[in-house]
């Protein structure tokens, strides 16, 4: 029956039934990216068509048999200006369109829900604010903008969800962000697209998009008991941050209540907005940004807190609106300072020395 081998036949059938030119469109930005893609494909087809037409047409019209003598032509400024300006205008359209899209993909809306992602050789760890942890997976609801704040523990990785048309490099030592709003429930590919060593191609996962109700149910069922901020509070106490950052008038460090998002005056005179990256930097490299009115005496916590611990601390400080609980903890720990060392090693997120 088959002229060709059954294996090949099977193969062709499978191809013809599953042939896809586009990944699924599962986010609000996906149709916009596809529109630009189609426009680019369109002008490419036109461009290649013109070049092919010219080359083939001239080859037939002016082949040596038909046209034994060439007519020498110096050039034509008008023609050259035409094929300089038309591509230039088209490229400018592509530039503006692409730039608008880029700003849309990389500037998150204010109300986005934040999820933290830590990349390491060779796995993705996602941390939901409520304390749900996931490895090589991410559960998200439809219809809600999600922002990912990402960092790598070792080498460059890249967080890519083709179905959402988003991708962002995950870099050691600094936070990068990306956002999206999923539209279609389903399971989609998550790839690491930056070469990161041996198991690069195994650093993949599933993005599970759920309807809001299903998402709520998932959140309920997979909580670990402590939220990121709660864990951050424990680390804050365990590392003794509260000894200085307690809001007392005579404390050696600035109060951290409501510090997130505020503008800070630094000793070098510059103004800086306290964002996630700023908070992380000041924990690891305190002398980089010293707030006006304080001495540069804070020690570095490099190597004492893991990336997850830092995320907990950042999340804790982000939600810190008063110093009451800090002072409360401070009073209890001062009663038995001998114990603080032992508790420190038990708090998840701190690194055992």
């Amino acid at each position: 029956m088959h002229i060709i081998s059954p294996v090949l036949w099977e193969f062709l059938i499978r191809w013809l039934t599953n042939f896809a030119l586009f990944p699924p469109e599962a986010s609000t930005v996906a149709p916009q990216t596809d529109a630009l893609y189609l426009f680019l494909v369109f002008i490419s087809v036109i461009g290649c068509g013109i070049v092919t037409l010219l080359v083939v047409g001239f080859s037939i019209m002016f082949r040596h048999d038909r046209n034994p003598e060439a007519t020498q032509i110096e050039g034509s400024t008008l023609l050259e200006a035409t094929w300089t300006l038309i591509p230039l205008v088209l490229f400018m359209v592509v530039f503006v369109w692409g730039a608008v899209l880029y700003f849309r993909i990389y500037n998150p809306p204010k109300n986005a829900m934040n999820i933290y992602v830590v990349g390491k050789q060779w796995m993705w760890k996602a941390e939901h604010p409520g304390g749900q942890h996931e490895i090589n997976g991410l559960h998200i609801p439809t219809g809600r903008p999600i922002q990912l704040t990402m960092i790598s523990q070792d080498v460059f990785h890249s967080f890519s969800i083709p179905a959402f048309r988003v991708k962002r490099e995950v870099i050691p030592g600094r936070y990068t962000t990306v956002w999206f709003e999923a539209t279609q429930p389903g399971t989609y590919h998550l790839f690491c697209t930056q070469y990161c060593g041996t198991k690069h191609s195994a650093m993949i996962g599933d993005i599970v998009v759920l309807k809001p109700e299903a998402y709520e149910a998932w959140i309920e069922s997979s909580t670990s008991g402590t939220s990121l901020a709660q864990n951050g509070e424990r680390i804050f106490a365990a590392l003794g941050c509260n000894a200085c950052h307690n809001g007392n008038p005579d404390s050696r460090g600035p109060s951290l209540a409501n510090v997130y998002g505020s503008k800070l005056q630094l000793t070098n005179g510059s103004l800086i907005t306290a964002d996630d990256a700023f908070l992380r930097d000041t924990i690891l490299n305190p002398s980089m940004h010293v707030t006006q009115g304080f001495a540069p005496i804070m020690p570095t916590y490099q190597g004492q807190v893991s990336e997850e611990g830092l995320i907990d601390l950042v999340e804790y400080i982000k939600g810190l609106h008063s110093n009451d609980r800090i002072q409360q903890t401070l009073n209890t720990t001062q009663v038995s300072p001998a114990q603080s060392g032992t508790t420190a090693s038990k708090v998840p997120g701190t690194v055992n020395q």
Partner: protein
Amino acid sequence: MSTIVRLPDQKVATLPKRTFLNSEYGLKSWLLTGDHKRIAILYLISITFFFFIGGAFAALIRLELLTPQPDLMASDTYNKMFTMHGIIMVFLFLVPSVPATIGNFVIPIMVGARDLAFPKINLLSWYLYIFAGCFTLSALVLGGVDSGWTFTTPLSTHYLNTHVVTAGLGVFIAGFSSIFTGLNFIVTIHRMRAPGMTWFRLPLFCWSHYAASILMVLGTPVLAISLVLVILERTIGIGVFDPAKGGDPILFQHLFWFYSHPAVYIMILPGMGVISEVISTFSRKRVFGYTAVAFSSVAIALFGFFVWAHHMLIMGISNYSALVFSLLTMLVAVPSAIKIFNWAATLYKGSITFETPMLYAFGFMGLFTIGGMTGVFLGSLGMDIQLTETYFIVAHFHFVMVGGMLMAFLAGVHFWWPKMTGRMYPEGLSKLAALVTFIGFILTFFPQFIVGYLGMPRRYHAYPPEFQVLNVLSTAGATVLGIGYLLPMLYLTWSLKYGAIAGENPWQATGLEWQIQSPPLTENFTVTPIVDYEAYDYEWLANKTKHEVTTVG
């Protein structure tokens, strides 16, 4: 189909008695030669050797990707395969391909000089190349390197235990070889032009090599610096790129791409020079808009230096610098478009014949147009987010580098083969090879655009099963492509002994190199030529040859 080939009567034709090939004999006369033509031959042999090694890695990569599962080799082995493929193809094949072989051979003759400005430095640059090749091969033999050809930090500096330093040194040394070649071309084109050979009488091949040489001389030192920093960070642990020591891993990306983006123009510009010569010769017509084509090379070289950060658009550079680099990327696409249209317009009212170099040149125009247009996709900010680091980008740069540059290289090798060896290649077989290469190329790399948009990341050893069909097509194409590349090697070798005697100007081309015997004398010209005609002046050539009796021997 008619041709313009004008060969001497094969029954009585003989090769010239004295040529650069038989002026001296023995291995020593080759290894210590100062003759640019002999050095070009040495380069041709050595880059062909490395091309087939790099090609063997490509074959193994495609074989592994036939199935979604990682079944042919271990992940580490696969990573070494694509790393070695990249390093060898970029630094040991593409960068020296046209300039060091064809450029070395014909540029001094084109400008009417006896040799390059610094013959000994030219020889040194070949030795450096061989030295670099030895380092790279020893990295390979000692157990390979798996950093990717981009040596991304901190992976390359802190997380790999393969031979990064050895391979890095290899690339470092290859860089100096490239700098010396560039330097030699710049000085030669500036200072050694024959009387009457003004800048605007230079063949466009010289212009594009001049532009590429500037990129080599100014860009390559930055690559050297970044590699030295990687090596120092890896061996003695200085903290330039390591964030834990206050370094910045993004800095490496800036330094590396500051060279490696201009490097793609180092690779493609000489190829464009070949295409200008070939298109003009086989349509018997001056290149349409000579000045526009000449200056577009310089414009590409100039803009090429200011677009490097488009390799980092998703790496967290500020949105506004992304804007600037995207805009400049769009601008650099324009001179390439000008060239394509000017070549197409050169055909208009020409008298076109279809010898093998012309077929390769047509292949170049088609594939380079696709490669260039998909470059616009990638330069467009929002689009780049979806496309970068996927197979789309792999397909894009293979269209430019393999579809463009390798086609141009083969066009050039066929075009100047009669001049280099004094013998013709077999025309029918070589046309077949050109066709096979074109078909094989499209089949290999076009499916990769689709699989890239679907999201398949590059450098993946295993991939989701739904991408298999496109990968099978690609592997099938690679097989065809492999045949397309093996054919020329076989018949060109055959032609060294059995090819028809070419005579001095089989193509009726206008360049100075075609007005001397093939193969040329060691000193190229017996008397210094005086140039009193424009480039691509076919009427001058017709007048010259009208009353001339073809004498050979």
